[in-house]
């Protein structure tokens, strides 16, 4: 059944959303974004399988490319932040708050 796959996809997306919103460690926030992206990939593949279209599988490839780019820039920002501020806690990063 297609709905089983979509429920797993929704569960992964909700778990990732919780991680992004409720955690303050930058590393774990980035990992949660990866979990969310993977949840979306499962839905895309399920629909590709349902309709027999390989385009859905291509979108997953593109999502993987974007995820790889996102994580490399995100981790570079994290390293720059840690070097300057000696913290990975988003609660301590409020110099833009005025």
């Amino acid at each position, binding site marked *: *059944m*297609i*709905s*089983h*796959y*979509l*429920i*797993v996809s*929704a*569960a*992964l*997306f*909700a*778990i*990732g959303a*919780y*991680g992004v*919103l*409720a*955690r*303050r*460690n930058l*590393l*774990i926030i980035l*990992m*949660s974004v*990866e*979990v969310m992206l*993977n949840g979306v*990939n*499962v839905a895309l593949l*399920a629909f*590709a*399988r*349902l309709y*027999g279209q*390989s*385009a859905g*599988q*291509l979108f997953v*490839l593109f999502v*993987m*490319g*974007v995820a*790889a*780019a*996102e*994580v*490399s*820039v995100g*981790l*570079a*920002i*994290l*390293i*720059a932040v*840690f*070097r300057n501020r000696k913290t*990975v*806690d988003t609660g301590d990063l409020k110099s833009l708050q005025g």
Partner: protein
Amino acid sequence: MGSIDPVFALAAAVTVGAGLLVVIQRNPIYSAISMLACFLGLAVIYLRLEAPFLAAIHVLVYTGAILVLFLFVIMLLNLKPEELGVEYPLKVRGLIAAMCLGLFGLIALPLWQDKRELPPKSSLPAGFGSVETVGHALFVDYALPFELISVLIMVAVFGGVLLAKKKL
């Protein structure tokens, strides 16, 4: 609900359980190891969805590149337990958990009504999910997005070097 494919059920349980561990673990190194289990479970789900090429690429890119990058950064930062920062109070986290549970319910509840079965494997086009089919679609029908992704990755390479370098 119809019968559940046992392989899928096991993979889904591992994936969702490991996904939960990723977000509730305090130490990022345990989160990264949980993410490994989550990604391997996902690869099995991809195989169940007739996407063997995507499953292989998923293992290569996610566990081979992204996870290793995470582990590399965790070791580079070498955070001590007191450097992990404070978490939000339990009340705030509970509220956000309730919100995310609501989000899950909002997506999943209408799906209980969805009784569509996946079409049998024989009804799929020949070679569905194989390297040939995906590669043909990628280089013939979707050549422009493919080139744009390569530009994006190029930008990410430059951005990563620029941001992480001490002095240019």
